[in-house]
């Protein structure tokens, strides 16, 4: 399979990828390396993993990172309550060794996303979302899992991967990632889509929207992104906005300034941004987009 095939597969599943992203994904799949995606929120980083799972026809296992995330939540944990019950319920004549063997068996192991991902028969897509939110220690043991694809549980021994998962990491740039992690990954920076790509995305998601209005919506959102905003509207916001506009029965953005201004709530998500785009600005942008 070449990278252009992958790109058209992605498009078929509803994800319009840039050439760079398609190439990075293609290489990540073939070189069996994790794919690290960076970019602003709302440019479709997480969606890459979801779409990949869809075209590969496998499970998506997602690990959402947060500060203080530790191995107990990311790899595995023993089910202590069940263990305690099992010890109490065991009969008198069982030796300590037997009990230990019993309670430290697979049955009492709680599989967390990372262990889950490497113990599947068919390789799943493992999405490690917002890795920059986790602290540096987590990054370190993630490196270990990602390089060897094995996890060691002291009581059970080393669990080797049955199949290598396709790993996608995403980061928003909340903090810089370590060089070691970056070097192990195939990297792609995902930017806001250009006008043509965004039109294609809109056409994919809302095929019944008339072409002129779609063009207006995309043009409007694109010029809104060039304004000085705290949080620029992402692709998901654009789609919400388009749905709102068509739901409100608007056929032309310039036709009803009041409704248009009201529907900006789909695009501008902070108070400062809403104040920064009053009706005059909206009208100027619509004028440009039309």
């Amino acid at each position, binding site marked *: 399979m*070449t*990278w252009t095939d992958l790109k058209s597969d992605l498009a078929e599943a509803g994800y319009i990828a840039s*050439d*760079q992203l398609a*190439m*990075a994904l*293609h*290489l*990540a799949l*073939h*070189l069996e*390396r994790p794919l*690290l995606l*960076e970019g602003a929120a709302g440019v479709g980083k997480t969606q890459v993993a979801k779409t990949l799972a869809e075209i590969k026809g496998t499970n998506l296992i997602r690990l959402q990172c947060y*500060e*203080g995330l*530790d191995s107990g939540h990311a790899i595995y*944990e*023993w089910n*202590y309550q069940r*263990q*305690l*019950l*099992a*010890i*109490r*319920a*065991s009969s008198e004549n069982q030796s*300590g060794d037997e*009990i*230990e063997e019993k*309670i430290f068996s697979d049955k009492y192991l709680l599989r967390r996303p990372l262990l889950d991902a490497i113990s599947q028969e068919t390789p799943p897509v493992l999405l490690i979302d917002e890795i920059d939110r986790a*602290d*540096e*220690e987590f990054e370190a043991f993630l490196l270990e899992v990602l390089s060897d694809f094995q996890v060691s549980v002291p009581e059970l021994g080393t669990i080797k991967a049955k199949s290598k998962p396709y790993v996608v990491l995403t980061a928003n*740039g909340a*903090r*810089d990632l370590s*060089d070691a992690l*970056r*070097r192990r*990954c*195939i*990297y*792609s*920076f995902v930017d806001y889509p250009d006008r043509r790509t965004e039109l294609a995305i809109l056409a994919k998601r809302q095929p019944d929207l008339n072409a002129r209005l779609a063009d207006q919506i995309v043009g409007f959102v694109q010029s809104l992104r060039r304004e000085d905003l705290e949080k620029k509207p992402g692709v998901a916001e654009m789609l919400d906005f388009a749905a709102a506009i068509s739901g409100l029965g608007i056929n032309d953005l310039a036709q009803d300034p009041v409704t248009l201004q009201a529907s900006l709530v789909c695009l501008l998500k902070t108070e400062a941004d809403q104040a920064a785009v009053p009706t005059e600005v909206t009208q100027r942008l619509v004028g440009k987009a039309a």
Partner: protein
Amino acid sequence: MPVTRFPAHAESVSDRVVGFMAHLRHNGINVGVAESEAALEALCEINPADPREVSLALKSVTANDSERFARFDELFQAYWFNEGRVRERAPKSDERPHQKNRWTSRSLLEQGMDASGAGSQEMPDDTGAEAEQSGDGRLIASKTVNVNKADLREFMKPEDLAYACKVAESLAKAIRDRRSRRRKADRKGALLDLRKIARRSVSTGGEPFYLFRRQKPERPIHLVALLDVSGSMTVYARVFLSFLKGLIGADQRTDAYLFHTQLVRISDALRDGDTFRAVNRLSIMAQGFGGGTKIGSNLKRFTEQYATNQVNGRTVVLILSDGYDTDPPQKIGEQLKRLKKRGAKIIWLNPLKGWKDYEPVARGMAEALPHLDLFAAATTLNDLAALEPHLERI
């Protein structure tokens, strides 16, 4: 941009790829053998005769952060399409940092003389800032001496320096005590360590007889201090130096730098056992420089050279400066933003802030403000001591 000439004769594809990697390294992208290997593997997966595909593939493999990502295309063109010149000697600005790493007092003094020799160049080009510095500034200064007898510049006696040192030590302690959000087995703590309890209760027939606990471990924060010793700051230099000395003494990981038109690492010099001697040595050095300030450029040098290893989420960067800068003011903002991105907390102590009616009018200072976690006065030693509760909260 240093450019490598495309080799006219090469043995094989790998030869050319290795040449390309060397070209990237010359341009500051740290790729190694692993990347070369990955690049060759990547070329097997695509059509290597199509330059666009090759460009996309090599970009995915070698450009591993957003900055490099943006630069890559230009570098690619330069090498494979020979669009550049033969590699030049590295520009002078690249050589300087190496000199600074090897610190000797002699070379520093020489550099200082150079700096003062080129005085006209170091003068503030922003006339507004200059006016504040020479006109209003002095006026307020003389007023301050009357109002506040204990301005830092009057602390020159050994016992005062010793006090500065002590204040610094307690501040360093206040900053250092931090807890992680993770939990670790510990003798006491609020949470039970179920893993251990379950294991030990095997021997007591399932009765959780021994209780083990988990606690948030301590995660010491470490300090990096940057001291401005330009002309406008020389009066404070000695006290601040002994303050730095105290900070350094409190923790092995603390790092200190001086800057004026250059950036110098002084941690090792400050670890000199004799406080008074160390401070005197460094003050003399600092006086030699008293000239222009390039806060922006120095911060840049710091973020590029030192911050990569020394600044992370558990670092507090302490900047001691009056914010008068001869660099374009937005440079400070940019560099602080970069530092901030590494997760560090930034504290700016400004001796002018203690003055009556002070407003951060120096444009550099105004640019810096949005990126600071704490902006505080450092006019008197008591000001410094009063920082402790603020630092605990950071």
